[in-house]
């Protein structure tokens, strides 16, 4: 029944070992480039998640791109090795069902050629053609699915997903699927509140960033999601840069040279969104990861010039916290060759 993945526009590539990941040109241009000016500092850069701009990562509420099938394959490998990357505290089952409903309905509405969902009361029928999955199940009854609802659906959705319980005027990271994170541990952070899991971030606390962000998030309502962008840099298009495996990928941080920086160093963009879940009143916090190699950036002159200027002017504590110290200067030298010094246009979209 399901169309084989090879007949669909999804790449067969790896995010580990031989790293065959590549972006096609359209994927590069639609990426949510995170810098709207030539320097970077923390901000509560929240905005409503609703513009639907065509040919961008914002076109659909939950974005699916050419890396979908390969990313899900990598996720399955991570979970085989370490099941602690997906956990749900006992009281978060209802939020898991809310999440399943949101992701299934969104994908089926945005990409009807790939996903379909039909519902007869609590009897649901889900088809995921790219992954060759067909599943009939009872909404609300976990015994009718091969995994709990959160794990089930996030094994079929790109990006990490944190589910935040709202209590006592705060948000608590009480469930998640976290296999593509930039260096934090779900197993360690699960149960922490908003300020606690952000504790290691330098500078931002003193600026009151988290107080303001929390107030904004507590007001997020159903059907009115918000989003913001975050970024770091990664050596190789490695999705699993977890602290759990740091002793395995850490050494790669010292492998960047002037000769390999173009194809081996990546801008790692996180498109974060925030959705109020109806039955549990929790907040779903997807963190969707987009890789652009330094060479990819040079195909959009505005972006490589801006990346150069951002790296050059980045405060040292920020650079250290984001783990850039080993290769920042090499990247600056490479990108300098693509920066003609002229003013870049407003906003982040390519010219």
């Amino acid at each position, binding site marked *: 029944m399901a169309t084989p993945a090879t007949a669909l526009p999804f790449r067969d590539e790896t995010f580990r070992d031989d790293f065959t990941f590549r972006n096609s040109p359209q994927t590069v241009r639609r990426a949510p480039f995170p810098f709207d000016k030539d320097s970077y500092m923390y901000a509560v850069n929240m905005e409503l998640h609703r513009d639907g701009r065509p040919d961008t990562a914002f076109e659909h509420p939950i974005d699916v791109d050419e890396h979908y099938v390969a990313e899900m394959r990598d996720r399955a490998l991570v979970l085989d090795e370490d099941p*602690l990357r997906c956990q749900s505290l006992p009281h978060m089952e209802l939020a898991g069902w809310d999440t399943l409903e949101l992701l299934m309905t969104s994908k089926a509405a945005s990409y009807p050629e790939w996903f379909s969902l039909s519902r007869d009361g609590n009897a649901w029928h889900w088809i995921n053609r790219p992954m060759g999955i067909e599943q009939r199940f009872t909404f609300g009854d976990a015994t009718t699915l091969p995994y709990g609802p959160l794990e089930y659906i996030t094994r079929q959705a790109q990006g990490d997903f944190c589910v935040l319980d709202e209590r006592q005027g705060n948000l608590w990271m009480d469930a998640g699927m976290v296999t593509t994170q930039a260096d934090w*541990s779900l*197993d*360690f*952070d*699960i*149960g*922490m509140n908003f*300020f*606690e*899991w*952000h*504790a*290691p971030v330098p500078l931002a*606390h003193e600026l009151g960033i988290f107080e303001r962000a929390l107030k904004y998030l507590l007001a997020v309502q159903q059907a009115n999601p918000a989003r913001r962008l975050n970024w770091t840099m990664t050596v190789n298009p490695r999705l699993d840069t977890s*602290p*759990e*495996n*740091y*002793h395995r990928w*850490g*050494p790669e*941080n*010292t492998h960047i040279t002037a000769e390999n920086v173009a194809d081996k160093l990546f801008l790692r963009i996180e498109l974060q969104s925030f959705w109020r879940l109806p039955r549990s009143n929790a907040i779903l916090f997807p963190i969707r990861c987009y890789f652009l190699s330094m060479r990819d950036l040079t195909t959009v002159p505005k972006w490589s010039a801006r990346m150069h200027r951002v790296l050059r002017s980045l405060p040292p504590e920020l650079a250290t916290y984001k783990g850039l110290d*080993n290769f920042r200067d090499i990247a600056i030298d490479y990108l300098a060759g693509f920066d003609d010094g002229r003013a870049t246009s407003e906003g982040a979209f390519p010219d």
Partner: protein
Amino acid sequence: MGTIEPSIRSRPVYGTLAPTAAAAHLCIADAAGAAALLDLFAAAPAGFADAAEICYVPGEPDQSAALQALGAARFHESPSVFALLPRLARQFERMSMGTQVYLAGSESLIGLAMMTGMRAGLDYQAMQTEHRGTLARRVQCVHCKGVTERVTTQPVECAHCGLLLLVRDHYSRRHAAFQGVNINAEDPSENPPMEEVFR
């Protein structure tokens, strides 16, 4: 022994025990935490001891006799924190809401007792805490998930997998432990000197 320096938001901050008008009082301490209990009882109104239970893990120092002399309704001595925990879990189960919980002593005692209370459904903010004595830490290795007890050095070798770990101030109530991350991942030949910093 050391005082706790202000640090990141996930690093626990402890207070000073103060008696409440609760109907019952559950007091847990190890080693130097006994002194905090002695202070608590001294500040408490008449009748406090009659409604109180003390569980104590003696160490350096052993103030068992002084605690027994307080005349609490029940006094129990455990040889170690881990021996105490199953009993404590049962105590949390059988008590009712409106029992005040007091935890005093090392961070490990406080953390493990608090974790036990949380598992029984008590919100962590309900339990009073006071740090006394050693700053030795429990450290969870983020790589192998094993917890190394009584860590006093920076860095420390994981007692389970042998990786050399940076002991962070990032703390998990659920694990009752600080986070340990491989310190020489980028260059495993690097061997930073171990210094005794958590005494």
